[in-house]
């Protein structure tokens, strides 16, 4: 799993690989180290192979922590498998998926 960030008006976090039990911990660690000043965080999921429930939890946790400081989280370009996971778990209703 590779995590790369691009700062600007929004913080774009590009994920490459799998977001699962092991890598979701890395993901949470990586973002908690960042001081997020931007109003919006975008997860660029174009190269995300799949996401498991652990990854969903990490995303949900991120959304909660951002919401506390009135910041938004968007998830972009999910592949069909990930979309299916979002759909079946209802996360497409909780998280902003574009």
């Amino acid at each position, binding site marked *: 799993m590779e995590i790369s960030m691009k700062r600007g008006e929004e913080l774009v976090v590009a994920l490459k690989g799998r977001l*699962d039990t092991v890598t979701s911990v890395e993901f949470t660690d990586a973002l908690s180290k960042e001081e997020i000043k931007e109003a919006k965080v975008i997860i660029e999921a174009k190269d995300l192979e799949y996401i498991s429930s652990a990854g969903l939890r990490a995303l949900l946790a991120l959304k909660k922590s951002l919401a506390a400081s009135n910041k938004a989280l968007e998830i972009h370009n999910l592949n069909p*498998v990930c979309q299916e996971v979002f759909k079946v778990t209802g996360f497409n209703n909780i998280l902003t998926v574009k």
Partner: protein
Amino acid sequence: MKDKKRLHFPILLKVILLGIIASFIAGTVAVVVSYNNMISKAKEDLNADGIAALEYANTYYALDSTTRKTDSFEVVRDKVIEGYDYVKNVELSNYSSFKDYEKEFENAYPYFYPKGLPGSKDYFEFKRVYNDITDTLFNASFYASQYTFYAMKDPTNPNRFIFITDSRMGTSMEKNVFYFCVGSHYDLKPTDQIFDIGHSYIKGYRLGSYETRFIEIKSDDSGDVETIGYLFAAYETSRVSSDYAPILRNEILILLGSGLAVIILYAVLSYFMFVRNINKLNKAAVDVSNQLKANKPLKTINPNIKSRDEIKTLEDSFILMQDQIVNYVDIIKKDAKEKEKINAELEIASKIQLDSLPNNKCDDYNCSLRAYIKPAKEVSGDFYDYFYLDDHRLVVSICDVSGKGIPASLFMMKGKELIKSAVESYDNLVDAINSVNNMLAKNNKELLFITSFIGVIDFKKNEIKYVNAGHEKPYIVSDNKVTKLDGESNIVLGVEEGYEFKAESHKFNKGDYLFMFTDGLNESINASEEEFGYERIEKTIASTSELPLEEVINKVNKNLNDFIGKKEQFDDITMILIRNKKAEFDLHYEKKDYSIINEIVDKFNDSFSYLEEKTRSSVGIIIDELVNNLVSYEKREDLVIDIHFEYVNGDLKLTITSNGKDYDPFKNHKEKFLDKFHSEIAPGGFGLIIVKDLTKSHKYFYKDGHSIIELVL
């Protein structure tokens, strides 16, 4: 011409050589013949002389009381020769006078000085004559002759003497004058004539070591010519030979000289009559060739030969040929352009044809397929095709169109499309092939046809149903054993409208592979016209069950190339290999650690790389959820997890077995999770929603101390 070649053996040289050989043979024959004639004539003469001389000598010898009388001519001659040899080797300077020598000789050879001759007076007279002779004017010549063998007065004529002597006394014989002194009682006068009875000497023909001769000496003392003595002489013929060798030599030289003159004349004439004209023709030919080389427009070159012979005819043909060359050059240029165009089009056709074939490799959860095609010409008459009817039925065809090149390839394209659409639209393979055959046979005026093997492989039933339309029978390699698909062969496609094809079935188990090929393979021949044949193919593919299909193809190709050597391939060679895949593998872990999740997913992805990405991602998620649950919630530390992946009837089956507690994860998970998730995120809870969503079926059971989850995707 710069690079004029040196002629090693020009015509002129040949003419001269032939002349030399001819004159040499003719000269040799002439010399040998004339020499032999000369010799036999000499022999005849001598024999006649000798016999006559002996008879004459015997007549007047009158040695009644001695054996001498009975001696033959040959005996006398031999004695003469013996004596002569003795005398010849005497070194006269060892003697103070000739008499001393004579005495010695007399003792050694009493034969020549017979005692008690009747009329011993005659003998003495002879002696005296002898002595006189030695002292007289012919000393020199007499010394040379050394001795007179015998001399006597002719009893019938007191004025006549008979001598037997060495003829070498006459060095002046060469001048045809024979000087001889007959004694003091008779003064030989210059007017005395000496006649040689054997004229053969004068003629100069002699052979052999020595010859004896008899010479009559005549005198005209009384005014009339009268015989006064005879000379019986031995002659060393080697001397004669040396006398006459120059004559013979001259004859040969004249012969050679005139021969040489003829040869030179012959050569000069030959040059002007033939060689010069041939050179002219040659120069003209070189000029024409240079023009061609320089790519200039051809100008007709006339060698201008004046003679009216075959060379002139050759010149006519040469000029005619030049005209034809001009025509041909034009035609060839046009042809070359045309051919270039055709080749370019053929290349495109070949590319289109190869592009129309499906990929030469295919790997999916059912099978692994490898195809190999090597056209003998630009465009091939072989083709293959494969496509799925549904997720577990693969249609494969391999065909060989009769004929080669463009016509065959057009027919092939037609056949390929017909087979595909027919097999796809008919439920029954036989109906499909009947329809393909009927359509190909209709209007098939060129009578092209296709040998074809069309099979439908069912990966759920693990069998192949096939129609063999006159094609090479494929093999199934199962557990390293080779089986020929030996079912009924039908006729080829495209020949007989209305023919009812028959299909056959054969078991095609997991792990087996099907080896299909065209006759280009088994009919490939080596330098001694031997075919590669079925046996070699069978031998090559036996025991290859564990080999990847590429390596089987490489092995066949290697054995084929080793067999055919440098022989050119004359037919297209096509092979298709399909393996019914054993799609399963197991993983075993004895550690309770999250890191195994990634290991499992990575290994799965490596082994099932041909699966769709979606399927692989689903498996990744499932593993992550379920193994995560096990690692997180199982209390025991000596956790053992076994994962088994398997393709069953086209579906991926996943079994996770552990020694954990008996707990069905599907039983109690939160269906209504979404309503509560804000307040409760139950670990492992909604992961199972995802798992259920991604699987066709799920099952949990506990057996023999193992908790087992079975999932089908």
